[in-house]
Every structure is written in structure tokens, then in C-alpha cells.
């Protein structure tokens, strides 16, 4: 059964379409990663699914509730970690969790037990009584994850939870999410910029660009969908102008991208193409100055589907753009 069901969802800000007829569903216990360049519409989508924004058209059902007509029920059944760090810095971790437990209507005894368990799960038990302003970025994020789970939801939304964290904290957050998912049977919808992490954690990945869904599948299948299983990045000295065409004739080559003297060769069989490449270079009198062979990564998938163009442009101003927002 689908926990999230999105049908033809649209969000417009004046002339600008942030989410453009998106449709997808997320199954029980699944982790769906939303990837996309800045301004692609990921946060707007999450905000609509968590009732923070009203869709212009289309329908979204979360836990069986309509996000517009049954917004209150949706809010009671989901956990949300917004993009900004939204904890009360003056309060302790325990106090932050108590306030949110009360907002979710938990009774005193249940509250104590749940908060104690959560602080243990996110490794913050020793610092429960310390003010959050003394926490590192990673600790604050873990505290917020605990806060989002204080009412024990089965569906969890996280908007770029690891952006700005150091690599160690990032790994800790992702490992913790994997643990929580296993122990609590969570369904997770997460946005991130970190492809390697999405690759490890997500069951499926949705790539969103210009508000549209451009790809949705498991990481493995997405990687397989990009031409070539290996990428050879080669630099040459003394090559002819039609050298790229020569390279395209090599065995198992799917595509070749050239940037001056650097060539990216997409191959179905990296080792065979490499041997043939060395032979061809020798025969043509071209010398290889560097050669690297790599497997297709999600980065390649991302670039393949969204392109390399920088996404400079104006966005709808909001709290997230405030100069006073304490970003990570």
C-alpha cells in the first residue's frame, strides 16, 4: 500500500512553476531520495506534502489523508525535519523534545519514556540537559531527528538533513537514519545533495529538475540507465581533430564527451575498451598523458539527467532566504 500518493501535483508562484505536474508514490517502509539541483522544486514538494504549502492543483495523499482537506490529520501522522535548524537554542535537548511531545498531545508518562528512548537512539543521552546552543551542527541535527520522531510517526520527511555537516557527522546521521528505519519501520522521504549517501541509503531515487520528475528508480537501475557502465577519463597529447570519432569506434563504447584534450568515454566494458584505447593511441601516434577508469556513479546519473548547466536564477523569497536565518 502506498504511504505517499502524489498525482499531477503543481505549485506556481506567479509566473514561476516550482512543481510541474509531479506524480509518484512511496510504499510502506521505503526510503525515497529526492535529488535535484538547487531550485528544482524539492523543498516546495516536501512543504506541500507536509501541509506547509497549498498546492496550486493536483492531489497528494499522505498516510491516506488528503494534504489539503485533511491537513490536521496529515500533520499528526508525520514527522518532519525542515531544511533550517529549527530547534530552540536556549532550551535543552530534553526541553525541546518535551515541548514537541506536548504539541503532539503525549501524556506525561509516555513522554518521559519516549524521549529517553529517542535520546538514547540518537546518542544524545549524556547531553540531554545541556542547552542546544552548545551543540555542534551534527548534534543539533540528531536532536531534531529525535524531535521529529517524538510522537512515533511511521512516515518521516527530511529536507536536506546533512547539508553543511562535516563528513563524520554526516555519516553518523545517515547511519542513525538507517538504524531508526530498521527499528521503527519508518518510511522516509528525504532530499539531499550527497549522491554517495543517497546511493547507500535510498531504496529508490527520484530526480527532479525544473519541477518535473525526470527519473525514478532504484540507484542500481538508474546507474544502468546511463550509457556505459564504466567511464574512462583520458588526456592525450598530439591528437587529430577527429580523434573523438576514432574513439567512438572502439569496442563497447556507448558515447564520448570531449573537452579540449580531455575525453570521457562511456563504455559497457571498461577493461576491454582500455586495452583497445592503448592500441589505437599507439597506432595513431597519440600519447596518453593520464588515464582513469571509474564505475558509473549517481553523480553521473545526476549530471546525465539534469545536465551541467548552472542554475543561476531568482527564486521566490521566503524565510529560508532571510539574511537572519541561521543556516548550517
Amino acid at each position: 500500500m502506498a504511504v505517499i500518493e502524489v498525482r499531477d501535483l503543481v505549485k506556481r508562484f506567479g509566473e514561476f512553476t516550482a512543481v510541474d505536474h509531479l506524480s509518484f508514490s512511496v510504499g510502506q517502509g521505503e526510503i525515497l531520495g529526492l535529488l535535484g539541483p538547487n531550485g528544482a522544486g524539492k523543498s516546495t514538494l516536501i512543504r506541500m506534502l507536509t501541509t506547509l504549502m497549498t498546492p496550486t492543483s493536483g492531489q497528494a495523499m499522505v498516510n491516506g489523508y488528503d494534504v489539503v482537506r485533511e491537513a490536521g490529520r496529515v500533520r499528526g501522522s508525520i514527522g518532519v525535519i525542515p531544511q533550517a535548524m529549527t530547534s530552540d537554542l536556549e532550551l535543552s535537548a530534553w526541553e525541546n523534545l518535551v515541548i514537541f511531545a506536548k504539541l503532539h498531545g503525549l501524556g506525561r508518562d509516555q513522554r518521559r519514556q519516549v524521549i529517553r528512548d529517542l535520546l538514547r537512539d540518537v546518542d544524545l543521552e549524556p547531553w540531554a540537559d545541556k542547552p542546544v546552543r552548545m551543540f555542534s551542527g551534527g548534534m543539533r541535527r540528531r536532536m531534531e531527528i529525535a524531535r521529529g520522531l517524538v510522537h512515533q510517526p511511521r512516515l518521516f520527511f527530511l529536507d536536506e538533513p546533512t547539508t553543511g555537516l562535516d563528513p563524520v557527522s554526516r555519516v553518523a546521521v545517515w547511519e542513525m537514519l538507517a538504524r531508526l528505519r530498521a527499528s521503527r519501520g519508518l518510511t522516509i522521504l528525504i532530499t539531499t545533495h550527497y549522491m554517495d549517501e543517497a546511493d547507500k541509503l535510498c531504496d529508490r531515487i527520484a530526480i527532479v529538475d525544473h519541477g518535473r520528475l525526470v527519473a525514478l528508480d532504484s540507484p542500481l537501475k538508474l546507474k544502468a540507465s546511463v550509457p556505459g557502465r564504466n567511464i574512462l577519463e583520458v588526456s592525450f597529447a598530439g591528437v587529430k581533430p577527429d580523434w573523438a570519432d576514432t574513439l567512438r569506434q572502439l569496442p563497447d563504447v556507448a558515447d564520448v564527451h570531449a573537452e579540449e584534450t580531455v575525453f570521457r568515454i562511456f563504455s559497457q566494458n571498461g577493461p576491454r575498451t582500455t586495452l583497445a584505447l592503448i592500441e589505437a593511441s599507439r597506432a595513431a601516434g597519440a600519447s596518453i598523458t593520464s588515464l582513469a577508469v571509474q564505475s558509473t556513479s549517481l553523480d553521473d546519473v545526476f549530471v546525465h539527467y539534469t545536465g551541467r548547466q548552472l542554475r543561476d536564477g531568482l527564486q521566490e523569497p521566503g524565510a529560508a532566504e532571510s539574511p537572519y536565518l541561521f543556516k548550517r
Partner: protein
Amino acid sequence: MHRVWAMIERDLRRFRRSPVLVLVSIFVPLVQLVILGYAFGGKVKNLQIGVLNEDHHLPSVRLQEMFQAVAANAQTFVTIPYSDRAAALADLKDGRLNGVLEIPPEFSRKALDGGSPQIGLAEDNTDPFSSSAVEAVLNELMPVYNGPVVGPRASSQATLEVVEVYPYVPYIQYLLAGTVVLAIFVSAMIGGGIIFIDDKARGLHEGYLVTPITKFELILGFNLAGTLKAVIAGVVLITLGSLIAGVPHPLDPLRLARMFVLVVLTSLALISLMFLLMVRVNDPLVPRAIFGMLNTVLYFPSGAVYPTQSFPAWMKCIASVDPFTYAVHGFKQLILKDGTLLAIRQDLFFLALFTLVSMVLGTLLFRRTL
């Protein structure tokens, strides 16, 4: 209702950790009360008046003695004798004197001959407070000087007998009412304006918006939490301010209870006003930018420092819808006249109505989405 309490608890816990808000909202108005209260003090005193007696005969000496009596008793001015006219006028120009009284050489002769004797007052009229105070004292003095030394047994002249209904009110006590309202306003401005918008910009509100709390509970939570902090500021200031200003019976429980009712209603009115003003604001600079302007527009037309009756018509219009006006009037009745709640029922009614209208408008404008 438990969600409303959660919002209030959050604010009070934050306040306990960082009570700067209430300290600032008490300290600033208290400093203003003490500085303004003693700076103005109600009466002008110790002005420097040079006396140039060019006559020296008995009538002029009698006049000079009357000046010295004023200096010794009312202390409106102190007299400094001069013999050189040019030196006295030079000191007046240089600001060492506030005025120069000149008794001309022919004064006594004209006084004895009935020839309309005159004395001259050269005054520094760049300071209207000082010059009008000197003029007022001299205008009171001259009829006494001109009158008979021994009065008639029966007089047909009508006189005015002034009866003061209340004990003498020093200016610092007069200011106290406005200062209490100012303290509540500063608390509302910082708590309901600056911190509210900062929290919104930091995304804190986004965290609450994804919980099941309803729009009404959220608004009630924000406003009641702000009101509680403003009430704390108001109660502390009314107690401390009464002690500093020397208000009679400052700790009388019944009097404090009446004050408490007015403090609560004033806090509700000013917090709901702030909520209405800030409900659609996102930029943290806005509350900071309008702080001074709001303070001026609300505080000064309210009668806190000057009677509203003397205002021009347009300022009277502002005063008539300004919650400060009714709060200040109410506090003046309670502080200066030991009035009852019945005596200030119109002020209480206006503040309650103002709270209701502001809350309804604020609720209509409040968006539960981003």
C-alpha cells in the same frame, strides 16, 4: 488547550534562561522615569538672576529684599548683585545669567512721587521654561510690592481660594503611569515584535506548523506567552516605580490588586496590537525599524508626559484610538488618586475592546502555511 500551554511553557523556559527581555523592558523605562522625573521635577529652581540696583534708596532696597525672599523660600532664582550694567548684560549674553533685573536711578523718587516707577527685566528668552518662570514670579511679586503694607479690615475685592483635592504630586509620580505602560510596551515590542519575527526567520515557527497545533491554539499561545512576560514587567515596574517615586501606600494589597487588573488588560492590548502589526512581517529588520516610530506615535500623544487637552485636533484623534491613552489615564487614576476599578471602567472597556478587535484582525490575517 495543552498545546497552548506548551507554547507558553516554551516561552517561559526561554525567558528563565535569558531574562534579558524583562530586564531591558524594566530597566529602560525605570531609567527614563528617574531621569525625566528629576530633570523636570515639576518646578523650575535656582535660576541665576543678576540684580543691578542703580538707585539704593528705601523703595528700591525694599524691592531688592523681596527678590531675596523669593531666592530664600521658593528658590525660583538666586540673586547676584551687579554694579556695572555692561558686565551684567555681558554675563546674560554669555549664558552665565538667566536674566538681569535693573532698578533704574530715578526709581525711588518716582515711587515716592507717584510717577509710575518701572524696573526692567532683561531675560534670556531662548529658554522659554526659565524666562516664563521668572516672569511668573515677578508678576506675582509686583502687586504685593504695590499694595498697602497694612491691609484694610474689610475688602470688597474678590479673591481666589485654591483647594487642592489631592496631596502635592511631584512630576516623577505624574510620569509613573506612562512609564509603567512604556515598560509593558517595550516588553511587547521585544517579545511580540523582535523575538517573534526572529523566531519566524530562523524557521522555528516552521517546526510548530508541522505539528497538529491549530491556528487558534498557536495564536493564543503566542499572545498569552507575550502577555505573561509583559505582566511581569508591568508588575515589577509599578512596584519599584511606586517606591522610587514616593507614591503613598505603595504596597497596599488592594491597590496592587487594582493595578494588576489594569496591567493585565494593558499587556493584552499591547501584545495583540503587536501581533496584528507583525502577523504578515517576515523581515527581522521591520520591528527594529518601527520600534522608535511606534514608541513616539503611541507614547507621546497618550498624555503620559503632557495633558492631552492641549493637543491639536489631529493629535487628539491619535490619542482617542491609542491604547496608551486609556492605560495611562487608568494608571494615573489608580496611582495619583487611589481610584477604584469602577472609576476607570471606561479605560478597562476600551482596552478589552481593543484587544478583541486586534486579536480578531490578527487571526484573520494569520497564515498557517508558509
